[in-house]
């Protein structure tokens, strides 16, 4: 089974009609992964035994005909805790870590009958934009194996693009779902902050992190979002808002919708060919009855430095827990307790994680707090106000997801500041906590381009609707990646 041709709905119908059993579906999924993943390296761990057992049990019990996810194999980014299944966050620090409980999103997926086939490769602790900071090797872009899949949810995007699995969970702190979705020609959805519980998601930056979905088709993402959404007693930041059935509510009517295109999204630093693809995409929305207007968001140019202070500061606090005492890697050859902390962290974390911990520690340290952390938190307010002002008049903000298409493996990893600029167009949605998606809009030199669709906070449905409407107009999902290139 490869997942190039079917949607979750179609697979569901096949399962209901008993054209295929859950066990057959799971078995052929693993066969394909074992074959395809030699080229892609999207998976860190396969969940073969438990998934096969769950499939058999579901076949015996019969699948839930009212639930689209019943019996559907999915895969999970490796920073989401999976009970009794190794969860590494892409780090040496957690090489042997086996969680004793499930993240809330996993409980919800299990309750709906989805089957976890494995854990997906990623930038270490979700810090990176190319999946090159993983301790478990590079992920290769199925459209050109010499190129990066983006990051940090690079494995989650590449696995879907390569037809290994139909939908995956990723996480998005500054664009980590949308940027790899754009690079791999798949759909990526970051929900409103608070829509999905973060309980059991290895924390990077708690005020920005949100679990997201990668899939080939918009409706598939809507089905997964319906499953994983909702208030959670275990996460104080999960919001007390109603969860609609995002699939049943899907509408492709764009008549009268108002779309704002920030001039900054179509200006300097954005590849010219990408701008052309995006202009064509916006024309499609016009044809569907929407209006397009250019707006200016001048504070957005400060989004990258603001993000790196805030996200790194929160990370420096969140990652203090990795001390070699209760779980994870512990350095050997230590003489005292202080040594355990310092050597464990220095040997267990990779270079990019160390850089962010250093930046965050610096920004929070005595004498620098006001100039860096507080300043960035104030600039975040300015950015959020700008976005809120746009949403007083418009339904959507649209533009490209990324300034360039996927770049070569090794091209930017030695230049952190250039690497950070990858996220300039995706960070604003995290700052403001608004829902945002990337949907494939075309290609430039054979590599996919993503259209970014940003909506109002907690109006996740509207972002899915616009995505659904555009998907029907452009049908990019009919394209198949070449899987060519050296590996």
């Amino acid at each position: 089974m490869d997942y190039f041709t079917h949607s979750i709905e179609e697979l569901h119908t096949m399962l209901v009609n008993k054209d295929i059993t859950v066990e057959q579906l799971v078995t052929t999924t693993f066969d394909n992964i074992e074959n395809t993943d030699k080229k892609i390296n999207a998976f860190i761990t396969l969940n073969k035994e438990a998934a096969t057992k769950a499939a058999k049990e579901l076949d015996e019990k019969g699948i839930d005909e009212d639930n689209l996810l019943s019996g559907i194999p999915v895969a999970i980014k490796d920073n989401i805790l999976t009970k009794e299944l190794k969860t590494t966050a892409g780090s040496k620090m957690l090489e042997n870590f086996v969680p004793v409980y499930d993240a809330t999103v996993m409980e919800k997926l299990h309750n709906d009958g989805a089957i976890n086939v494995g854990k997906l490769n990623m930038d270490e602790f979700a810090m990176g934009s190319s999946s090159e900071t993983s301790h478990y090797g590079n992920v290769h872009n199925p459209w050109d194996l010499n190129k990066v899949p983006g990051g940090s949810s690079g494995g989650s995007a590449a696995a879907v693009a390569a037809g290994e699995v139909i939908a995956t969970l990723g996480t998005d702190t500054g664009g980590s779902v949308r940027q790899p979705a754009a690079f791999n020609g798949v759909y990526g959805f970051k929900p409103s902050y608070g829509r999905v519980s973060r309980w059991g998601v290895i924390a990077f930056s708690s005020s920005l992190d949100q679990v997201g979905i990668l899939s080939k088709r918009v409706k598939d993402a809507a089905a997964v979002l319906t499953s994983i959404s909702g208030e959670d007693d275990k996460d104080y930041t999960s919001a007390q808002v109603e969860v609609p059935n995002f699939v049943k509510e899907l509408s492709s009517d764009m008549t009268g919708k108002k779309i704002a295109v920030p001039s900054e999204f179509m200006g300097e630093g954005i590849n010219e060919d990408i701008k052309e693809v995006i202009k064509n995409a916006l024309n499609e929305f016009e044809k569907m009855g929407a209006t397009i207007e250019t707006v200016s968001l001048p504070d957005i140019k400060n989004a990258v430095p603001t993000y790196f202070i805030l996200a790194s500061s929160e990370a420096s606090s969140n990652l203090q827990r990795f001390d070699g005492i209760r779980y994870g890697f512990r350095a050997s050859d230590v003489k005292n307790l202080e040594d355990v902390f310092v050597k464990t962290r220095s040997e267990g974390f990779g270079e990019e994680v160390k850089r962010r911990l250093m930046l965050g520690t610096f920004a929070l340290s005595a004498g620098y707090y006001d100039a860096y952390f507080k300043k960035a938190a104030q600039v975040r307010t300015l950015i959020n106000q700008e976005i809120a002002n746009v949403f007083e008049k418009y339904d959507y903000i649209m533009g490209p997801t990324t300034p360039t298409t996927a770049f070569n493996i090794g091209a930017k990893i030695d230049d952190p500041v250039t690497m950070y600029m990858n996220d300039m167009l995706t960070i604003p949605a995290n700052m403001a906590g608004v829902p945002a998606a990337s949907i494939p809009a075309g290609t430039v030199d054979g590599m996919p381009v993503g259209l970014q669709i940003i909506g109002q906070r907690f109006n996740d449905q509207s972002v899915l609707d616009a995505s659904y409407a555009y998907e029907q107009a452009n049908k990019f999902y009919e394209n198949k990646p070449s899987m060519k290139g050296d590996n």
Partner: protein
Amino acid sequence: MIDKEQIKHVASLAKLEFSDEEFDEFAEKFQETIKMEDMLTHIDTKGVEPTTNLSTRTTTFREDVAQKEQSRELLMKNVPEEKDGLIKVPSILDTEGDN
């Protein structure tokens, strides 16, 4: 600009250490990162409230009912070193080859 001594101080706060060989390269890239951050100093933020979280709710209380928590056995599962059901750590004071 942040100098190398300051970077070493930050490393000690973050409980990180760098070998002499890796330090120079790390420091150079770190200084580049800080240079990018200095873009922020020119922005007028007088009177602007900082945003540090996006939570939409105020403190709430759950019902005070007994809950089943993780067992001691489960909690000890990922402990790197244990002895008699307790987490083992090296002595706090330097023991120089005597642990």
